[in-house]
């Protein structure tokens, strides 16, 4: 099986490229996605291959554009709507949370909206658009929210998102965007939505994560391994609806749970995971959530860096559980 070393950004583009070649109903909508190559080079090469008729540039009108894409998905197309950054998700909250999410159920299955809203979220080297909005989207039934934690996951999850018959919000973590490369299979493959990955198995503690914190957990697990603590990592991949079975089974095995995400702790995804697990599993230690403090995200690096869970935070939290 051939593969190529790609960044997460390149892996997403490759998934879109191969799928657009396969399915003529896929078109992309967004700002600066043509000759410019997309925000953070997120569409590099696509306009050259598919031209203006399928890589459709739009005005700066996020609500109108998202609704446009939703309507297009109701009439035979499978649009990918490129929303520049996750900071803009609240702008289109109405279109996502009261329109897209409702269509299938409220129409009794007659109006399905197969579109992908792709955006970029979280802090990163670029440092300009740091917001994490997945918890807002996760509260509403009917929306699938995906965040890849590696290039391999990024490609396979984007393929499933494009093939889904219902709306998917696909959040690309900016921190990993131009980050470590990985050998990504050249042919097209799909990683199912709603299924978590277990990139590391272990018997002592379950580390639940997604997006950037997958990398944090991996580095922390390596450190903890040296101290004799055997970590199991559960990468949610699909944040909502999350894979209850994999998370619960892992927690049943290890009886210890740490959840880490870059988004705020208050009413966050971690709260849902902890509530779900503690409802089903007798844990040997109190579960720990690591997340952003309940403050807006500041600009000064010294302030901002303090808002993200770090490898040391995870090591310290896990170590505490065993004492």
């Amino acid at each position, binding site marked *: 099986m051939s593969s190529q070393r790609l960044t997460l950004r390149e892996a997403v583009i490759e998934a879109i490229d191969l799928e657009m070649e396969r399915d003529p109903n896929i078109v992309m909508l967004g700002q600066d996605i043509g000759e410019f190559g997309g925000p953070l080079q997120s569409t590099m090469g696509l306009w050259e291959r598919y031209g203006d008729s399928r890589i459709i540039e739009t005005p700066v009108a996020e609500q*109108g*554009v998202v609704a446009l894409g939703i*309507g*297009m*998905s109701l009439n035979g197309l499978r649009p990918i709507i490129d929303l520049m950054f996750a900071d803009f998700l609240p702008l289109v909250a109405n279109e996502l949370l*009261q329109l897209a999410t*409702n269509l299938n159920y409220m*129409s009794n299955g*007659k*109006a399905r909206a197969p579109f992908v809203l792709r955006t970029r979220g979280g802090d990163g080297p670029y440092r300009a658009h740091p917001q994490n909005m997945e918890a807002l989207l996760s509260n509403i039934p009917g929306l699938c929210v995906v965040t890849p934690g590696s290039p391999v996951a990024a490609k396979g999850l984007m393929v499933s998102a494009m093939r889904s018959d219902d709306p998917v919000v696909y959040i690309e973590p900016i921190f990993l965007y131009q980050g470590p490369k990985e050998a990504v299979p050249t042919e097209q493959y799909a990683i199912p939505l709603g299924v978590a990955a277990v990139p590391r198995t272990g018997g002592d503690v379950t580390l639940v994560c997604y997006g950037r914190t997958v990398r944090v957990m991996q580095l922390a697990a390596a450190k903890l391994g040296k101290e004799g603590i055997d970590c199991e990592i559960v990468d949610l991949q699909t944040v909502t609806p999350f894979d209850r079975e994999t998370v619960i089974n892992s927690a049943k095995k290890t009886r210890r749970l740490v959840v880490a995400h870059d988004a705020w702790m208050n009413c966050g995804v971690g709260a849902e995971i902890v509530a779900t697990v503690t409802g089903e599993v007798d844990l040997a230690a109190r579960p720990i959530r690591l997340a952003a403090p309940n403050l807006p995200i500041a600009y000064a690096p010294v302030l901002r860096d303090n808002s993200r869970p770090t490898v040391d935070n995870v090591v310290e939290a896990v170590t505490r559980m065993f004492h």
Partner: protein
Amino acid sequence: MPKDETSIDALWHMYEGMLVSRMLDEKCFQDFAEWYPAFGEEAVTIGAFGSLVDGDFAVPHYRGSMGVFWLRGMSLEEIIGGLLFRTSSVSLGRLSGLHGGDFEKQILPSVTNVLGPNVSSGTGLAMAERIRGGSGVTVIAFGDGTAALGTLHESVNMAKIYKLPILFVCQNNQYSISSRSSKFHSWDSVASWAAGYNLPSSQIDGNDIMAVRAAANEGIDRARAGGGPTLVDALTFRMGGHLSTDKAQYQSDEERVKWESKDPIKRFEEYLQNSRQISVTEISQVRERVQRNVLETWNKVLASEAVSLANQ
């Protein structure tokens, strides 16, 4: 409905459509604690959507939507089932009667109570139609309140830049709840806004169904021929409050009397008699038949199986 709005079949169809809309509204107004009637606005809904053919999309405004459902071929059983939450409801009771529609009949349901998203997603229906090379036209109606919404302006602009096959119709009843639109619009016609986006646009007498139909046909023909979107501001009047509990004390007696004399159904009956030599007897026969049909179907649906958790 026959495309030539002056043919006798078209006239009867328009008349029946306005009657169905009015009589369903009267029944709902009488039976429901809360209802949003389109009294006086029937010429706009039935006129604007009357020329659509199979393959076209209808995106109605919530007020007066049932007349559009009927035009698109939904049965009275389905429409009333939606109102009474019976199993003949197309959405199985998940949507309200006036939001429901039937997407299989290319009516966009209103799955949110927020106004605006349907205008903007309706624009997307037309965008996909253009990209896929289809011949369908989309008619999108909205109120004068919605006309001031930012997303509507985004969509009208995009409809123009992408040359989409759309007829936008402002069902301008001059009120959003208690707010007089003249107080909140920078122009005295929504058509002037559309002209700002370089759309062919006009304000017309929304209580004259023949005028609405003619303006709609012009826009629909332009859209189907690849000439892009048109906006029609159909000036009408909401005869009464926003909903049944609203006594509309903010409307003056003077304007109410003035507009009551322009009731679109009465006006159309006069037109049928005076310009088309149709007898009063014939008109009353149609009126009685529609009334009987609405009430009999209502009672039949009322006695039918209700939506329940078990039959979802």
